[in-house]
C-alpha cells in the first residue's frame, strides 16, 4: 500500500514542478519523471503490458516534446494568461465544487484493492478471466481483450494513430495553398 502513496506523491511533486518551473526543458524532463513514475506504478499495480507500453511511449513522447522545445528562442515564457472570462471561472467553480463535495465522489467506489468486478455478479471481467483463454486461445488476457473481445476498440485506436499521422503530415506540409492557381483564374 505504502509504495503507491510514495509513487503517487512523487508523481504529484513532479507534476507541480513541471507546471510551475520557468525553463521549458526542465518541465519536459519532469514530464518524463511523471511518465516513468507512472510506469513503475503500473508495474506494482500488476499491469506489465501497460508498464512496457508506458515506457516506450514515454521515450517517444519525450523525443517529440524535446524536438519542440530545444533550440527555440523564447523558451522562458512563463506566467499566467490574464483571466479570460468564463473558462477560468468555470475551472475555479469546478475546483470549489469538488472541494465542497469532499471525497464523497470517491467514497462510493469500492475500497482500493477491492475491484468492482469482483462484487458485480455479471461483470464482463469475471468472464474474461475465467473463460478468456478457453474462448480465444491467448494466455495474455489483455491481448485477448484488446484483439478479440474488444477488437473493435483497437481498430478505432489504430485509426486514431493513422488520423494523427495524416493530420501531422497535413499540418507540417510546406505550402497550404497552391500559389499558381489563384481562385480568380
Amino acid at each position, binding site marked *: 500500500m505504502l509504495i503507491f502513496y510514495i509513487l503517487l506523491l512523487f508523481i504529484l511533486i513532479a507534476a507541480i514542478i513541471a507546471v510551475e518551473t520557468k525553463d521549458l526543458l526542465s518541465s519536459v524532463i519532469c514530464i518524463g519523471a511523471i511518465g516513468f513514475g507512472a510506469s513503475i506504478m503500473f508495474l506494482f499495480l500488476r499491469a506489465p503490458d501497460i508498464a512496457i507500453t508506458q515506457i516506450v511511449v514515454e521515450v517517444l513522447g519525450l523525443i517529440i516534446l524535446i524536438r519542440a522545445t530545444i533550440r527555440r528562442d523564447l523558451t522562458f515564457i512563463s506566467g499566467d494568461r490574464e483571466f479570460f472570462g*468564463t*473558462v477560468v471561472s*468555470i475551472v475555479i467553480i*469546478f475546483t470549489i465544487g469538488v472541494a465542497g*463535495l469532499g471525497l*464523497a*465522489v*470517491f*467514497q*462510493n*467506489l*469500492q475500497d482500493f484493492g477491492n475491484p*468492482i*468486478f469482483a*462484487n*458485480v455478479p*455479471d*461483470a*464482463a*471481467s469475471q*468472464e*474474461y478471466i475465467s473463460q478468456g483463454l478457453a474462448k480465444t486461445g491467448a494466455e495474455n488476457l489483455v491481448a485477448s481483450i484488446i484483439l*478479440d*473481445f*474488444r*477488437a*473493435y*476498440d483497437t*481498430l*478505432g*485506436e489504430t*485509426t*486514431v494513430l*493513422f*488520423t*494523427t499521422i*495524416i*493530420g*501531422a*503530415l*497535413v*499540418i507540417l*506540409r510546406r*505550402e*497550404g*495553398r*497552391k500559389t499558381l*492557381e*489563384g*481562385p*480568380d483564374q
Partner: protein
Amino acid sequence: MSMPLPLFVAIPLVTAFLMPIIGGFGRKGKGTATVLANAATICLLVFAVASVGRTDVYLMGKWSIPLGINLVLDGLSSLMLLAIGVVSAAAMLFGVRYMQQYTARAKYLSLFMLMVAGMNGVVLSGDIFNLFVFLEIASLASYALVGFGCEHEELEASFKYMVLGTIGSLFVLFGIALVYGNTGTLNMAYISRAIQQSGVNAGLSFALALFIVGFGLKAAMVPFHAWLPDAHPSAPAPISAMLSGVLIKTLGVYALSRIVFNVFGISETVGWLLVVLALSSMVIGALLAIGQWDLKRLMAYSSISQVGYVMLGIGIGGLILGRAGPDIDSEHLAWASLAILGGLFHLINHSVYKSLLFLTSGSVQMSTGTREMREMGGLAQKMPLTRATCTVASAAIVGIPPFSGFWSKLILVIASVQAHLYWVAAIILLVSLCTLIMYLKVQRHVFLGELPENLQNVKENTGCMVAAMVFLACLCVLMGLLLVPSLREMVLTPAVEVLTNGVGYSTQIIEQAGIGN
C-alpha cells in the same frame, strides 16, 4: 435479414486507408481518389436511407454483451446517420472543385472519410468506451482539417480548438472511468440497468456533470463556446459545413442526449440545466452574431444559437419527463414528445441549411477571394445561383413559412407554451428576430447594393459546387414534408420514442441482443 451495421464504419475507414496509396500515383491517382471518396459518401447515404425505420443490435465478433461491443441502430441513430449521409455527400461533392486551391488533396479526402467514420461510429456505438474512441477519431480529424490551410489564423484556431476539444474528451474519459468504477461495466445498456438498481450516488452524479461539461465543450454550448467562432470559419468551406452541420450535433448533442436520457435517466434538475444552457447559447450566440462582419464568422455564431434551439427542444422534453417521473400520463408524454420532436426536427433542418449556408459562403469566397462583408456587394447579378440557394437557406433558418425552419420553430414554441414556459416561447421569438436581422444583413451586404470596382469580373462557380448547393437547397424546401404523418412515423417518431423511452433503453437492448444470439 439484419443489416451489416459495421459497414457504416468499415466503408469510410477502408476508403480513408486507401487514399494515401491511391493518391501517390500522380494526377490520375488523385482523380481516382476523388471519385472513390464521392462514391463512398453516396454509398453511405444510400445505406442510411435504407436504415430508416429499422432497429437492430449487432454483436461485434459474435460476443454476447457485455463481453463484446455491440452496435445499436434505433430511430435516433438512423436519424443522425441520415443527417451525416446527406451533409457529407453534399460537402464531398462541393469539395471536388473547391479543394483544388489547396495542396495535399489525397490527405484531405482521407481525413474527411475518417471524420465521417468517426461520426458514424459514435452514432452506432452501444458501448461507452467505444463511443469515446470514435469521438476521438472524429475530433482529431477535425482538428487537423481546421488547420488545413496552414495559415496564421487557421493554425491558431486549430490549436485553440484542439486544446479545448482534448480537455473535453478527457472530461468524458474521466467520467467513463468513474462510471466503470461504480457499475463495473462499460456497456451502455448494462450501465443503465445498474444505475436503475442502485440509484444515482455522488460519484455517478459527478460523472454526469463531467459528461455534460465534456460533451458541452464538443457541442459549443455557451459557457464552452470559445473555440467555435474561430474554428469553423478557419476550415475550408466543405469542412465548415461538416463541422457546423453535423459534427457538433453528433459529438455534442447526440452523445449528450444519449447519455443523459438513455443511460442515466432524465431528472428535473438535468432538464433545467439543459434548458438554461440552451437558452444562454441561443441568446448569446445570436447577439454576438449580429455584430460580425466576417461572413463565415457570422454563420459560426449563428450555429451556436441554432444548436441552442436543438438543445432547448430536448431539454424541455426532458424537463417534462423528469417532472412527471416514471409513471407519466399520456398527456404529458405527448407534450414531451412534441418538444423533443421539435428539437430533433430542428437538428436535421439545421444540419441541411447551415451546411448549405457554409457552402454558399465558400462559393462567394472562392469567387471574390474575401470573407469580409464590407468589401462585397451586388453579387446578385454575378452569382445568381449562389444567391438563390443562399436566399433559400436564409429563409429556412429565419423561419419563413413554407420552409423547414418555420415548422421546427413553431413546434418548439407550441411545446414551450404547453410546458407553461411562456418566457421561453418569447425568447424563441426574440432570437428568431435576431436571426432575421443577421441574415438580412448578409443579403444586404453580400448580394445587394453596389458592386465594388475590384469585383467587376467575378464569375459564378459551376459544376460540382453548384450541384451540391442546389441539392441541399431542394432538400431545404422539401424538408417540411417530413412532418407529413406517414414520413414522420418513419423518420422522426422512432427517434423521439428513443428519447422518451428513457432508461427503457436498457431492457430493450439486452432483450434484442439476447435474440441476436
